[in-house]
């Protein structure tokens, strides 16, 4: 898809005498719908969550890109932004939240802690060294913490990723 077509409805309109016919591909329609309505789960474990809250508020306003409202239950969420350090005690809870989310589901690892354990990489007894030890990650954002713009960039990158998925391929590939 060309750069300028990103946000355009992925179909052609064929004019007929009594209105018109829309022609499109099923994959593109599904991806269009999914990528433009990604609801994040309310989940923040430390300072990155403050930046995530900024990204949601009026100044950065992630609703502009279809992230709309953060849901307080995993049953209604499409996306989990892991914003903050995950400790050993939190890891099973995070896994459980992820398991409770309905497919298709996506994960953004926000900040150094979720990528590698960050400042707690050395000599720690309690921190998980990278959230990808627990759940699969779609997009990583480096930073400590990343700015809201970085988070928005990562979320838009995730939308791009979703736009290139194939509907049946996704379910087959992930084996769910």
């Amino acid at each position: 898809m060309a750069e300028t077509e990103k946000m355009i409805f992925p179909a052609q309109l064929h004019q007929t005498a009594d209105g018109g016919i829309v022609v499109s591909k099923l994959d593109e329609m599904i991806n269009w719908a999914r990528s433009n309505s990604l609801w994040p789960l309310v989940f923040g474990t430390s300072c990155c969550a403050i930046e995530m809250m900024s990204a949601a508020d009026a100044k950065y306003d992630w609703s502009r890109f279809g992230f709309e409202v953060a849901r307080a239950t995993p049953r209604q969420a499409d996306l989990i932004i892991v914003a903050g350090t995950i400790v050993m005690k939190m890891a099973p809870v995070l896994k459980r939240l992820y398991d409770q989310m309905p497919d298709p589901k996506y994960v953004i690892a926000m900040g150094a802690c979720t990528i590698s354990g960050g400042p707690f990489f050395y000599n720690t007894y309690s921190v998980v060294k990278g959230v990808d030890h627990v759940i699969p990650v779609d997009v990583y954002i480096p930073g400590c913490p990343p700015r809201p713009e970085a988070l928005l960039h990562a979320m838009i990158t995730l939308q791009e990723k979703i736009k290139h998925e194939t509907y049946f391929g996704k379910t087959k590939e992930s084996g769910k």
Partner: protein
Amino acid sequence: MTNETVRQQLTEKFGEQLTEWEEQFGLLTFTAPAEMNLKVIQHLYDDESLRFRFLTDLTGVHYPERKGEELCVVYHLHNLVDNIRLRFKIYVPSEKPDVYTITQRFSTANWMERETYDFFGINFIGHPNLIRILNVDEMDYFPMRKEYEMEDPTRRDKDNEMFGR
């Protein structure tokens, strides 16, 4: 009421059993034998003029150099009427770190004692639910004890130049 009067009243009641009096940064500090912690805290709570009825904090310290009494439990108490604080310490050996719980006096001590147990392994006798609170249940050591190697001070892989700064 001042630190002096608190010290005077406590000395009248307990005499020479209270030791190591200090006033670091104006905070009155003293030590009692481990088995007396309940008595002292009860007295501080009940006495009509002392009225130390708020437990600000309860935690542990490991002093490996104090042989035979390596582990310390620290109580921070606050008299909210006269706005006076004090710090009260007891020491126990790390081989047998048994301390009486104060949960019957301060309910807030419940989680604080669990935390102190979690990180220092201090056994609070009579605690209603002495299990780990912050660390994973499977942990079989007490991480805040000074038993583990310090980070190598000569390592260079965390220097600024490694991060392009």
